[in-house]
Each structure stands twice: as structure tokens, then as C-alpha cells.
């Protein structure tokens, strides 16, 4: 630890960090809690909670949330593990392309998936129509089944990326040792490989679960009456007549608690199961023969293509000729023209908000990351813990919390761009803090000491040695934050006003209006921006799909 005499820069940073956390995290979360505990007249009451427990509408939403959460979890686990196992253990032609498909599913704008599936399998769906012509009738995709299909296909990359990383790090010698002890291949897989990848499985599954619980757009578009907590909270908040803020905040509290329980559960489950394999003996991929080979390829490509299908559909539909909201035969650039002439401000908003949020995230995240990594004390441990909180906050909850906190009182931000930027900032900040702290902890402290002994002051040593070394990681992290920032729907949906509308919000509204051509074109632009950001990130840190999680 380098002592910096007289220069109490870090104390100031520590205080500023706590102030920031207080204003942007504790006050909003506190406001949510307070709002849920008081009635319209300002009296303390538990009525909202008793109402939550009493009304079947909320019971149903709570149960539905668990159903889509665990359904999404199991779907993602199933698809993700099959794909991970095949790609990391068998020779799959075009394995890189498969990974690309998974990334595509991961960075595709939210809920566009839901709509693309409606286009294909909805009431007037293309595929359904085609099958009907062949005499096969299938039910439309609406309802819980559709939500689960979309969630499984949208969230399987979390499991796939986590597990394939873990699987390719299982030391081959371990499996060879098991083979030497007389275990069959199946026993080897279940008793050696499975326990080794269990932490990755639970971590990937948790990500799928948390996202499924937090997802707002998919149940909204596909649910057709199948309400979950996130949609209930939004409905209560956004109702034109009879908006019920205190009930919306009550549901938010429930959502936070549910997410938190799952995070803690996952941590508990994988606590004693962390294995550090050495990488000397990497597993080899087996070349399958005959029908097994065909089956493995079919499974991998089927999952990958289905997951990327929404993206492919929206890119194709964005070029279709339209007449008003109705698609015509043939291709044209009409949808893009309409964006160019009518929706320039939405694109501009999205870009400027995301750039502003990312700039803040990078600067603040790096400084706080340095603080957490270099100043080990009780306070920084607490800080590290406090930064866990935004992880478990669904976007819709952050949005409602920011409204609860900044609608009145000393700081009024509702209706400004700042509130949207800050809501993205606080949600993504933990990621940057964590990655910066991790990369700093991996740097040998003697590097800076060497510079100091050569005559550089501690601050100069940090600037000239540490900063250049962690810079590629910071830029890459910033790019990935940009992807999340520009795709953020649920918090923006709560926080936007006409002049601060972003692309995801516009897409959502366009889909509700049935104007899919423009929605598809906007999604394609969004995808292009996200894709470029991912490309730049991979250029800086090497191709590392797991950084996307």
C-alpha cells in the first residue's frame, strides 16, 4: 500500500462516493419503501402490503412472476447447457458463428424478440398462416407458453457463455483420472464435470432468472392478460386514471426482495463449489460420427438460429415496403426514411443519453474502482456491498424509485434528460467498479512502486503506469455499458417525457401502435450501434464473450 502523505484525495473521493450512493441509490430505494408504507393522506400504514397479500390479482401476478422466472431459468438452462456442452466438447463446424448467434440474441433490443415471434406465430403470423395452408393448425403464441419460449431463447446465452467457459477450463487430467478409476463416460460427466461447472450453471441460471423476473416488455406484448409483477407495477404507476403510486412502490419492494433472495441463494449454493483448475490440460473436442454428429449440429444451430431469429426478422422487415403501418410486397427504404424525417430526435436522444451515461460510468466507475481496490478498509468493503444493490433492481423498479425520489423535494429531476442518464448510470456503475477493481488487483503493486523508486510521484506513477495498463479494459467495459445503456427500456419507459424519448421507448410504442416497419428499422439501427460497440470492445480486450454478462 502506498502512503500518500498530506494528499487526502482518497478521503474526498470516499465521501463523494457515499454522497452519490446516498442520493442515487439509498434515497430512491428509501423513497420506494416510504411510499409503500404511507397512504395518499400521508399516514403510516401497512394497508398496501395487506392489500398485496389479500387481492387475488396480486397473488396471480406474484405466482406468474415465479412461473416465468423459473420457466425462463429452466428453459435457459436446458438450451444453454446443451449448446455449451456440444460446442465445448464436440467438433462443431462454424463454432464461432454459433457464438456470434448467441451474442446477437444477447445484445438484441429487448421485447423486439417478443414482437418478431408474434409476426411469425401470432394470430396472423406468417408461419402459422403457412402451416394453416398446409392444413396444420397450431395455437397462437400468446400467453405464458409464448413468454417462456421467448425467455428461454433470449436468456440462454447467459447460461451458454458461463458454462462453455467453465467446461473448457475443466482439467482434462481430472476426467482422465476418473477414466483410470473405471468410471463410464456418463458417470464421468455427472460426477466430475457436472460438479465442476455447477457454479457456472447457477451463475448463468441466476442471470436468466433475474432478467426474466425483471423483464417488462415481453409479458406486456405476449402476455395478453398474463400479468407479472413488473407489468403490474407499471400499470399501477402509468394508469391515466387512478394512478396508484404507493401500490406500485409496494410491488417494487416485493420485486427487490424476490430478486435479492435469489441472488443470495445463488451465492450460497455456489459458495463451497469454486474450483480453480490449472489450464495445463485443456479438454479436447471429440469429432462425432454419423447421426450423433448430425444431431449435435442440429441442436446447436437450431438453438442459435431460433435465438437470433427475432434479430433476423426485424432486419428483414425493416427493408420491407410499407403503406402506412401495413406491409406490402417487395422491399424499400421507406421505414428508414420515416426515421430520418420523423424520428431523428429519438435517435439523437438515445445516442446522447447513452454517451453521457457511459462517460459518467467510465470516469466515476474507474475512480471508485481504484478506491475499492487500493483502499482496503471496512468502508470500502461496505462500499463494495452497497454496489451489489443495483444488480438486483429491475429497471422498472429503478424508474419508479427515481420518480418517487425526485418528483418533489430538494432535487426535482422528473422530465429531464438527467434522470434517464442517472438511472442508467447507477444501474451499470457496479459493473465498471467491479471490473476496474478486479483488473487493478491483478496488477502487481510493485509496478507502481518501481515507477516511484525511479522518481515519479505516486500520482504520476498511477497515471503513467497503471492507467495505460487498465485502459483497454476500461474502454471495453465502457463499450459494453453503452450496449446496455442504449437498449434500456423499462426504466426509461417510466422516466421519459415527450422530449426525452429514447429509441427503445419509441420502438415499444410503435409496436403497440402496430407500426412494425419503423419499429424494425429502429431496432436494426439499435442493433447496428450495439454490434459496433461489441466489436470495438472485443478489439480492445480480445474476443471475450463472457464479458458481456
Amino acid at each position, binding site marked *: 500500500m502506498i502512503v500518500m*502523505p498530506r494528499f487526502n484525495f482518497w478521503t474526498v473521493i470516499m465521501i463523494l462516493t457515499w454522497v452519490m450512493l446516498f442520493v442515487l441509490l439509498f434515497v430512491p430505494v428509501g423513497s420506494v419503501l416510504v411510499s409503500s408504507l404511507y397512504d395518499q393522506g400521508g399516514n403510516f400504514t401497512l394497508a398496501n402490503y395487506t392489500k398485496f397479500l389479500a387481492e387475488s390479482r396480486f397473488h396471480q401476478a406474484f405466482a406468474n412472476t415465479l412461473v416465468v422466472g423459473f420457466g425462463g431459468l429452466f428453459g435457459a438452462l436446458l438450451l444453454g447447457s446443451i449448446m455449451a456442452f456440444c460446442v465445448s466438447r464436440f467438433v462443431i463446424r462454424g463454432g464461432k458463428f454459433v457464438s456470434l448467434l448467441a451474442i446477437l440474441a444477447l445484445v438484441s433490443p429487448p421485447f423486439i424478440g417478443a414482437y418478431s415471434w408474434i409476426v411469425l406465430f401470432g394470430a396472423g403470423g406468417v408461419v402459422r398462416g403457412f402451416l394453416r395452408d398446409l392444413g396444420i393448425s397450431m395455437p397462437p403464441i400468446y400467453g405464458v407458453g409464448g413468454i417462456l419460449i421467448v425467455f428461454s431463447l433470449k436468456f440462454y446465452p447467459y447460461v451458454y457463455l458461463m458454462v462453455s467457459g467453465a467446461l473448457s477450463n475443466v482439467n482434462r487430467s481430472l476426467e482422465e483420472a476418473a477414466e483410470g478409476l473405471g468410471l463410464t463416460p456418463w458417470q464421468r460427466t455427472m460426477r466430475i464435470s457436472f460438479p465442476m461447472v455447477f457454479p457456472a450453471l447457477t451463475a448463468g441460471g441466476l442471470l436468466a432468472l433475474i432478467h426474466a423476473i425483471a423483464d417488462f416488455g415481453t409479458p406486456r406484448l405476449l402476455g395478453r392478460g398474463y400479468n407479472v409483477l413488473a407489468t403490474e407495477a407499471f400499470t399501477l404507476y402509468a394508469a391515466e386514471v387512478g394512478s396508484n403510486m404507493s401500490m406500485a412502490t409496494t410491488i417494487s419492494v416485493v420485486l427487490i426482495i424476490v430478486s435479492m433472495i435469489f441472488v443470495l441463494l445463488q451465492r450460497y449454493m455456489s459458495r463451497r463449489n469454486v474450483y480453480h483448475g490449472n489450464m495445463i490440460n485443456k479438454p479436447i473436442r471429440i469429432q462425432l460420427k454419423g447421426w450423433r454428429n448430425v444431431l449435435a449440429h442440429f441442436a446447436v444451430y437450431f438453438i442459435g438460429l431460433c435465438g437470433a431469429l427475432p434479430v433476423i426478422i426485424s432486419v428483414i422487415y425493416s427493408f420491407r415496403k410499407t403503406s402506412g403501418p401495413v406491409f406490402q410486397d417487395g422491399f424499400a427504404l421507406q421505414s428508414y426514411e420515416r426515421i430520418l424525417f420523423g424520428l431523428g430526435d429519438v435517435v439523437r436522444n438515445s445516442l446522447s443519453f447513452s454517451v453521457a451515461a457511459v462517460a459518467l460510468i467510465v470516469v466515476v466507475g474507474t475512480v471508485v474502482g481504484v478506491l475499492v481496490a487500493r483502499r482496503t478498509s471496512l468502508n470500502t468493503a461496505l462500499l463494495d456491498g452497497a454496489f451489489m444493490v443495483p444488480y438486483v433492481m429491475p429497471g422498472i423498479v429503478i424508474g419508479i424509485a427515481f420518480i418517487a425520489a425526485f418528483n418533489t423535494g430538494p432535487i426535482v429531476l422528473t422530465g429531464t434528460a438527467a434522470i434517464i442518464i442517472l438511472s442508467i448510470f447507477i444501474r451499470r456503475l457496479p459493473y465498471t467498479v467491479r471490473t476496474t477493481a478486479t483488473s487493478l488487483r491483478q496488477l502487481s503493486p*510493485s509496478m507502481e512502486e518501481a*515507477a516511484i*523508486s*525511479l*522518481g515519479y*510521484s*505516486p500520482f504520476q506513477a498511477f497515471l503513467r503506469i497503471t492507467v495505460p*495498463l487498465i485502459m483497454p479494459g476500461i474502454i471495453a467495459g465502457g463499450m459494453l455499458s453503452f450496449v446496455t445503456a442504449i437498449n434500456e427500456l423499462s426504466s426509461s419507459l417510466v422516466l421519459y417525457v415527450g422530449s426525452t424519448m429514447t429509441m427503445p421507448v419509441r420502438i415499444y410504442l410503435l409496436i403497440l401502435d402496430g407500426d412494425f416497419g419503423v419499429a424494425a428499422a429502429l431496432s436494426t439501427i439499435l442493433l447496428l450501434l450495439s454490434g459496433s460497440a461489441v466489436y470495438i470492445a472485443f478489439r480492445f480486450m480480445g474476443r471475450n464473450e463472457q464479458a458481456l454478462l
Partner: protein
Amino acid sequence: MSYLTVTNATKRFGPTFMALDGVSVSIERGEFFTLLGPSGCGKTTLLRAIAGFNDLTSGAIVLDGADLRTLPPHQRDIGMVFQDYAVFPHLSVFDNVGFGLKPRKVPAAELKIRVTEALDTVRLGAMAERLPAAMSGGQQQRIGLARAMVIKPRLLLMDEPLSNLDAKLRIELREEIRDIQKQVDIATIYVTHDQEEALAISDRICVMNAGKIEQVGTPQEIYGNPQTRFVAEFVGSINVFRPGSALDAMLAKLGHAPGGAATWTARPEHLALVEPDGQDSGAATLPGTVTKFTYLGREAHVQVDTPAGLLVVQIANPGMAATRHTGDAVAVVVPPSAPMAFGPDGARVKR
């Protein structure tokens, strides 16, 4: 007044742990001075206090007549070589070595000359433009050495610079460090836990244990005349005789008075083996049976069970005939000069 004096250096971690407990050393100009001791003995703490990375709890560090403790580390003008090399991976070999010359405002032309010269000294002249990441440990440590040397520091500190290298390279590079240090004539403090390395490289060695100095002396003094039992055990190895009538008889034969001594010891290489009935005039013999034979190429260790305990005898250049088998009856010869006595406090008791 010596060039560098450390007086009563004390460093306390937490309420009870004393990393340094009243350490005083003085180092002369151009001297190669080694701090030797097991891990946790305080040697690195002392080195880092001199470098300025951790301050002392109390004590004084004076370099060339000026108090060092009031200076921040970057103004101390002390070169440091690190165990993990600490080579900057984003800079070329040349820029690594030239890094310390920039804050010293050395003109570009002179910088080029000095860096090239330093790189030639460590035999890396041909690699100046390469990035260090893909270079071997030995090469990286040469960069570290050149980088610390090129600023012509007032003092050169080396913190276990060779411990991450493989055995052969360690020996090769320690010879080089020794030669370069003599050539540039900068007072150097070298930290290591490897006693052989310390003996090979140093002008003087300071053996430390549990935050205190055990002994300071030349390699010959440290090995040949250890002042404490710790030094005798840590530098080289010793046999400890089991107290009893056999030991008393042996001491009587050799004419040593047991007064004040708690333990009697002897180095394996000072003992010899003879046939069971063999005698050596003036030396004591202890009969025994071989319990283990370890062949090491240039030497062999024979463990013998004697009435004065298990004794290891070192045989130099063991030929085929020197091979012993478990159970062989032999006698251990103890010459009068071999036994070393230590008091109950571990201090050497002079005969």
C-alpha cells in the same frame, strides 16, 4: 560515519506483531550487503522502509549524512529491483530502462547513450525495441536491473530478485549481478532467503530472525563462525548431539569443557566416517550403524545412529567405494575443531 546507517529501526503491525524490533545496521560505500533470513523475519520490511514504501514505527535511516525518512519515496533516488520484475508491459525494453531518466530531465541524446550502455551491460542490447511481455524471466529481470542501475542511484535495493527463476539461471544471473555491482560501484542491499545465494554474492551478510539481527559478518564469518544457533542452522546445516554419557565422554576425549553450553553441534562436513574399529589420533570416534545413505553426485550424506544421536556425515566426491548400506556398522570421527557449543539462549559459547 558509514554511508547508510539504520538505527533502532522498529516496525509494528497491529498491537502486538513486531516486524522489526530495534534493528541497527550500517553499510559502506560500494558494499554488497545482504539481508538473509526466513520469510517473515523482517528483511523485506526493512528494505521497503529504506525504499520508503512503508515507514518505520520508530528509528532513523540516514543516507550519506541526510535523514531519509523525511523524504517521500520518489525523491530518495534509490534504485529498486523487484521479485516479480515489475517490468512495464506496455513499454519497450528501451523505454522501460529509460523510464527513470525522464523525470531526471536527461537530454534525449544522453538518455540514448546511457540506456544503450545499461542494456549492453545486462546483455540485452539487441532487444531494445522489443516488448517485454514475451521475454523470459531472466531477461525481464535483466531489464529490471538495467532500469534501476541507469539512474545512477545512491543506493540499489534488490528484493529477492532471483527467487522466481529456475535453479541454473539463478546461479548464472547472481554471478552477473555481482560483477555488475562491482563495476558500477553502487552500495547495494540484497534481500534473500537463499543462504547459498547470500554466501556467493555478498561482501557482508546480515542474518535476521523474528525482527531482530542474529549476526552481521562476511560470508566466511557467518558460515565458519556462527554466533547463534539460529545462524548455524539457517546457514548450512548442523547435527545436534544428544546429551548423555556418550556426548560427555566425547567432549572429555576432545578436551572441551561443557561449562555454560546447552547444546553441542557439528556440521556434517566436519565429521568423517571410518570402519567400526578405526581410530583417529586426537579425534573422538562414535560407533554406530548406517540408517540412510543419500547420494547427491558431488557429495553424499550418510545418516548414522550413534550413542550421541542421529548424525549426518557429509562425504565429498563419493566414489563407488563410498556407498554405504543401511545396517552397516561404522564409526563417526569427530575432530576437536568440529563441535560448536550454544548456550540456553541460543548464543554461541566460546571454548
